[in-house]
């Protein structure tokens, strides 16, 4: 057989040639089959381990299970913050090829739902890709079923049953209890629930202060899913653990009463048990509905809350600081007694008090009493009763600022009442060192006089004032302020006495006169009956009064714009025979303490006296 380029077909012996060519083809086929077999051996034997992992990764999806948040109860065992079931839709970036496409398909299934694709995209892209992001928070059952039917068209989108927080008492408790909303990025590190984007965390109030107790523990499960993400079966599960219950010392009915009484005003009320330090009410007005935070809140609502001049978002019982005004006088009096000044010693009040001041042309500075014509001769009891400023200017000057500050601090002023509240303010009790450190200048004598009537640098909160008064009229027993019931040694007295009861008796008597004797500053608000209240008014200035205004006559509060009016304060206790409750009331820009705050305190005491002296308690056992 010859090969020749001359012929197109290589052939002389056709039979032989075909056999040869067929044999070559057969060898090639055998070669190809060997390659295929080798490839299969490589994939199925050598790489088996890797592909097995990939296959499991395909079919097994890990899901976290949201824990139910602990319930918050009041003193009587009424649930205040509870959980309701809700139906929600989430998306997981990792499990969809195109987040936007999935969202658009979702919108086409639910044309009525407001789905802000741009916002969700932003959220999805800013988080880790395996974290589920909530799309719709609170679906109706009809929509929920509709989505479940169409879920195979919605790559990466899932439905789940979650919980939403519901506040049974609405706006009367909102500042105290706070609210929950999605975990923010800054909280991600410290909150294990952040693995679940739909999980919420307390943002303020008890919800935030006790978040670690309330939040519970995440559960998780492994589920087998098909290619479209539908759950086929559950492989294993660790159930979530509900957060612990919390019982507050707050009586929700009293709290509600206090809040209602503040309606239309801007201010706060604090009610404390003088014997054991339990707070029964911490109300603030105006308020907001905490349940709006359970749904995604609109920007407009949020802006309105923020820009409102009455500051509805602020808890005015612990987060707003006010000069205590005349409510400080009982504590200044105590400082005087402890410094050896007799309560019988009288001072003459002619309406003003002068001190040397070389910086002024006249060579002296005038400090005015609130009563222009003066009180005449006043002793300590009368000074407290009629709230004589000149008396307190003089004893303050004799006692000195450091002694006044020491007494005030001993009573808890200038210090946070509830250590765990992030939004709580500590107030300011000024002394020489404080001024040097904070303002960098030396203390002036005139500043001691201002401090003596609770003005100047002095700042307090309503809760502080009620606590301070409680410790004053319980014969000087140091109290442990309590808000959470059943913790922190319930009903156990801290036996430490922080003042001489002999002095306190004098002050208590003066406070009694201030309310229950004619000419007393809160005489008009006195309670007639078996149980009586007593207390001290306070009016704190928020503006400087010029010499010119003094000469022309003071502008009356009602003629001033709201934000220029004086704050009205009142601290009181009752019943006077065996004191049980101490109350502080602050009415922002309410004018005078006697006119705005004392009547509210009076009503609260009437409520307390009428509704059995002992508030009902019903212990909730932690589950």
């Amino acid at each position, binding site marked *: 057989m010859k090969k020749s*380029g*001359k*012929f*197109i*077909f*290589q*052939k002389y012996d*056709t039979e032989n*040639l*075909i*056999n040869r*060519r*067929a044999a070559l*083809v*057969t060898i090639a*086929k*055998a070669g*190809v*089959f060997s*390659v*295929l*077999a080798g*490839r*299969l*051996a490589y*994939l*199925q*034997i050598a*790489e*088996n381990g*890797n*592909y*097995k992992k*990939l*296959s*499991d990764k*395909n*079919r097994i999806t890990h899901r976290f299970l949201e824990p139910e948040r602990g319930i918050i109860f009041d003193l009587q065992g009424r649930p205040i913050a509870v959980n309701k079931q809700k139906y929600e839709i989430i998306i997981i970036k990792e499990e969809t*090829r195109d987040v936007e496409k999935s969202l658009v398909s979702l919108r086409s299934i639910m044309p009525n739902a407001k789905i802000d694709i741009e916002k969700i995209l932003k959220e999805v892209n800013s988080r880790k890709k395996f974290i589920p992001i909530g799309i719709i928070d609170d679906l109706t059952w009809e929509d929920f079923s509709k989505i479940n039917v169409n879920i195979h068209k919605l790559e990466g989108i899932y439905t789940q049953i979650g919980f939403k927080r519901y506040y049974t008492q609405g706006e009367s408790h909102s500042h105290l209890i706070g609210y929950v909303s999605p975990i923010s990025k800054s909280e991600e590190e410290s909150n294990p629930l952040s693995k679940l984007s739909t999980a919420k965390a307390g943002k303020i109030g008890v919800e935030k202060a006790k978040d670690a107790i309330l939040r519970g523990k995440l559960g998780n499960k492994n589920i*087998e*899913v*098909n*290619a*479209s993400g539908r759950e*086929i079966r559950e492989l294993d599960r660790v159930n979530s653990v509900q957060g612990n219950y919390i019982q507050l010392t707050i009586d929700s009915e009293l709290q509600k009463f206090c809040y209602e009484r503040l309606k239309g005003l801007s201010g706060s009320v604090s009610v404390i048990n003088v014997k054991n330090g339990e707070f029964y009410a911490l109300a603030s007005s105006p308020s907001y509905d905490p349940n709006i935070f359970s749904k995604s809140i609109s920007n407009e609502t949020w802006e309105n809350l923020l820009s409102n001049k009455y500051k509805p978002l602020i808890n005015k019982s612990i987060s707003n600081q006010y000069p205590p005004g005349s409510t400080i006088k009982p504590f200044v009096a105590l400082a005087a007694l402890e410094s050896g000044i007799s309560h019988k010693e009288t001072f003459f009040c002619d309406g003003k008090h002068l001190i040397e001041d070389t910086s002024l042309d006249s060579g002296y500075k005038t400090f005015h009493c609130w009563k222009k014509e003066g009180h005449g001769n006043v002793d300590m009891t009368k000074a407290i009763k009629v709230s004589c400023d000149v008396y307190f200017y003089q004893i303050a000057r004799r006692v000195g600022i450091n002694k006044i500050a020491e007494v005030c601090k001993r009573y808890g002023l200038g210090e946070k009442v509830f250590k765990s509240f992030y939004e709580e303010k500590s107030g300011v009790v000024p002394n020489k060192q404080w001024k040097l450190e904070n303002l960098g200048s030396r203390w002036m004598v005139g500043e001691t006089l201002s401090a003596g009537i609770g003005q100047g640098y002095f700042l307090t909160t309503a809760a502080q004032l009620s606590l301070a008064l409680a410790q004053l009229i319980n014969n000087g027993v140091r109290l442990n302020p309590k808000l959470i019931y059943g913790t922190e040694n319930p009903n156990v007295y801290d036996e430490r006495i922080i003042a001489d009861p002999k002095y306190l008796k004098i002050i208590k008597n003066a406070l009694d006169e201030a309310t229950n004797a004619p000419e007393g500053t809160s005489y008009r608000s006195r309670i007639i009956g078996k149980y009586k209240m007593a207390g001290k008014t306070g009016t704190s200035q928020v503006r400087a009064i010029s010499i010119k205004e003094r000469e022309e006559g003071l502008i009356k509060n009602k003629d001033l714009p709201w934000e220029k009016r004086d704050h009205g304060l009142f601290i009181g206790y009752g019943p006077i025979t065996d004191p049980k409750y101490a109350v502080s009331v602050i009415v922002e820009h309410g004018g005078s303490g006697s006119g705005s705050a004392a009547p509210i305190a009076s009503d609260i005491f009437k409520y307390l006296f009428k509704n059995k002296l002992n508030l009902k308690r019903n212990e909730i056992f932690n589950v």
Partner: protein
Amino acid sequence: MYNQNNIYSSVFAKLQNINCPLLGLIFTLFFVGLAALYSISNGDFNSWPLKHTQRFILGLIIFFIVIIFDLRLIFGYAYVIFFLSIISLVIIPFFGIESNGATRWINIAGISLQPSEFVKYTLILALAKYFHSINNDSSFIKTLIIPLIITIVPVLLVIIQPDLGTALIILLGGISLFWISGLNYKYFIVGVFSILCSLPVLWQYLKDYQKDRVFTFFNPERDPLGNGYHIMQSKIALGSGGLFGKGYMEGTQSHLNFLPEMQTDFIFTMLGEEFGFIGTLFLLLIYAALIMISIRLALKSRSLFSKYLSLGVCNVFFIYVFVNIGMVTGLLPVVGVPLPFISYGGSSMLAVMFGFGLLMNCYINRNIIIEKTNY
């Protein structure tokens, strides 16, 4: 002229001559396919398995009809049959059914058929007749013009459908006959060289999705959720099957729908997942045995036509198997080629049975000598 008695005895004689091992292997493959489809349909015999069975029975009928015909008659009508199949390709753009962006099917009496599946075999038929009939001593290059034209025309018609996979199989099947017929190997060298040179030009004519598939073939991780998805999931299914597989009807990749097209082009993967390497090797061996027997039977024929035809059928069958398994194991791009006898698909089943009918006919009539007169 035969009388009736002669016809019966002649048919009986033909049936007696059937090669049983080959038919046995075909049945084996059918049952493997049936088992696979039963698993995929989650134990519902009435869906895919039932239709698969019906198609196999229809295929068997075609197989036996082809056997009964006189080989000389088939030889005589080879060009006519080829021409008819080309006509069916030509009318597709006008009467065809569109699906997934491609028009490949025509509806004949309520049955959707894919003519391109049959053209693979009719081309072999026409080429076999041509190469049988020419004078092999010809030194004129024009001898090659006709077979080149009858190969290129169906290939182009299928490319425009567009169905690159089937076009490639038709082309490779045709070229394999050029080789078998003894064409000087230097023409193959020239051919391969000119194809390589024209690749950049051909590339321009590829549809975007076809280009994507080629890109993806070279780098499946390029877009694991897009075009690489098929290949990745297929490899995961095969690889996770391991040596012994996950067990019959226990394949997670297939039963949880991670495998695309698992009842058709990717059915091999599903078997690999459930039966492991043992299963895939077993299947590979059955195919190898079937091809070996086919080659042996082909070489027993005395006429060139029979040899060409049988070897051509065998080559087309081999290409089917190779491209499909190569594709699902990630050795070849995803081109959409079914696994013969096992994949769910009517046209493929009927065409393959038609092809093996021709092969068996050649074997039964292996002693018939066909003159070159009909050229």
